[in-house]
């Protein structure tokens, strides 16, 4: 009966649409379209193109030479290994945590708390995470003092590394693990218990299930999440900016320096060149992500 009414409404609907001219409806898309053009397309376009022009507005490829500057190359290298390292740690720890979460019922309180905490730490931490780590392993941090007083270990014997590149590793892992939980837990929860039942019924073992079914099915999701974590670390700015107010060890901090001072390394529009470089790398990573994710989605119907 329901479907009959549905069909009836559908017929009325299509009849009316044929009579009506579509022009006013198209106008309805204009405000959002204009907004996206001005605040998404235009800034992205400017960011991509500004590196390719001189201060006078003439087109040039000379600025791209900045990308071969040892300082810039070093920043890209630092950003890359920092992203890979923290993504790898985050992926492994996050996957383990996701696996543990399967022990709690879906929609239960434990899952809700971990979901909310993951969201906060993964996406809204920024400056506040930097504060947390200064309070923990800063020069006057809780763990720093504890190690000093109780064990006589001075973790800063070789200098205050927390305000330099190595100091970024722990805070980055701290937001990578929750992001892994957010992205990987749905895939893990999508593993069907029936597949395990089938394996056991056919005489297989639990280990065989994981080796022959579980891990092959989850591999694309794991890889996709790993790629997303790389992109996440690569584009992250706030935590690094709050931790190291002077240094420019990674690309986003180089962009800050380039934006706040007129000329960097005696070149023009370095910020634009760096933005271009970042976008290229992000595009590669996110394209890979989309490809792997498509394959992962096969098992998540």
């Amino acid at each position: 009966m329901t479907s009959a009414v549905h069909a009836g409404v559908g017929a009325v609907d299509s009849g009316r649409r044929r009579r009506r001219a579509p022009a006013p409806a198209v106008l309805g898309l204009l405000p959002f379209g204009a907004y996206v053009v001005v605040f998404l397309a235009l800034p992205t376009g400017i960011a991509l193109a500004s590196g390719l022009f001189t201060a006078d507005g003439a087109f040039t490829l000379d600025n791209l030479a900045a990308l071969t500057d040892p300082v810039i190359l070093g920043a890209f290298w630092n950003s890359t290994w920092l992203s890979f390292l923290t993504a790898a740690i985050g992926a492994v720890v996050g996957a383990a945590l996701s696996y543990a979460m399967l022990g709690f019922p879906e929609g239960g309180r434990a899952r809700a708390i971990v979901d909310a905490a993951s969201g906060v730490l993964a996406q809204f931490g920024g400056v506040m995470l930097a504060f947390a780590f200064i309070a923990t392993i800063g020069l006057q941090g809780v763990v720093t003092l504890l190690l000093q007083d109780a064990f006589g270990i001075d973790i800063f014997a070789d200098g205050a590394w927390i305000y330099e590149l190595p100091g970024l590793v722990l805070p980055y892992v701290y937001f990578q693990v929750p992001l892994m939980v957010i992205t990987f837990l749905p895939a893990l929860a999508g593993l069907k218990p029936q597949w395990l039942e089938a394996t056991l019924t056919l005489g297989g073992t639990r280990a065989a299930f994981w080796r022959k079914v579980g891990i092959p099915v989850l591999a694309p999701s794991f890889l996709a999440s790993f790629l997303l974590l790389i992109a996440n670390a690569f584009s992250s700015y706030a935590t690094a900016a709050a931790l190291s107010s002077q240094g420019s060890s990674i690309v986003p901090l180089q962009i800050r320096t380039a934006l706040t001072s007129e000329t960097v390394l005696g070149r023009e529009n370095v910020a634009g060149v760096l933005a271009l470089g970042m976008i290229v790398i992000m595009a590669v990573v996110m394209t890979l992500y989309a490809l792997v994710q498509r394959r992962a989605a096969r098992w998540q119907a």
Partner: protein
Amino acid sequence: MAGLTRTGAPSTGMPGTPDAAASAAASAAAPTVTPAAPSPSGARAPRSGRVRATIAPRRATTWVILGVVGLVFLIPIASMVEFTLRATGGGYDLSHYTALLDPANAGKYAPIWRGLQGSFLLAITTVAIVLFLLAPTMILVTLRFPKLRRPLEFLCLLPLSIPAIVLVVGLAPIYLAIGRAVGTGVWTLAFAYGVTVLPYAYRAIQANLDAIDVRTLTEAARSLGAGWGSVLLKVLAPNLRVGLLSASLISVAVVLGEFTIASLLNRQNLQTALFVVNKQDPYVAVILALLALLFAFLLLLLIGRVGTAAALRRSTPRKDPT
């Protein structure tokens, strides 16, 4: 799945009773990056005592992993708390908390209140952009331009691939022009924030749109004589309230945590204020950071609860209320 559990779909279209179809409301989009929600598997409750086939780890394994990771993750948060309780002469007291409320320090902490004000203004404006610009466009696309659905999705998820720091490079000249045209008020940042919240807001609203039959609701209301205004406000908005609410809450959370764009465009919001005050009085900065983290946590917990409630209502077949 939602379609199967829906009952009495035609009657729900009446402007007076928009409530019934809300049983089909989507689970609120948690800030997941993979939108695919796993189907609730009933097989996990091993009521039949046959093969106890569950993928879940043993109780002990669960608690060991959770305990170790949880402990490590609690250390920085606990350190923040310890840090704020340190008394100036050694020992612990609440002096840093009382200092925050002491009127004598009003001048010192003024940037924080200004920043907080700015962030709230930005949160409201950004939510307005989501509710009055994004949501109507998504409804319009669902109703009239189904072919544009994929392009719209691509567009809305695009900001995930564009780092905020890159966006800033392009936004700088635009905000120079905006500054000349309408001034450098902090609220203008909301236009940029509207873009950064686009992926999250889109997912939340789209999940809800997928779960209700927008076309049928609209046509039923229209055929009963409702104008487009009442279709939007009295029929669709109530049915989309879970999606709209989660989209709004998550936008608030994103805006309150945003630092990159505000800092590099020289506008003051909560995060830039924390950054500035941290240099004079790190204790107060850490207190406020703790409060902000707690607030974001509660917001997300609320989104989760709203979503679970909606999902539960959806998965349990409704009884006829006669």
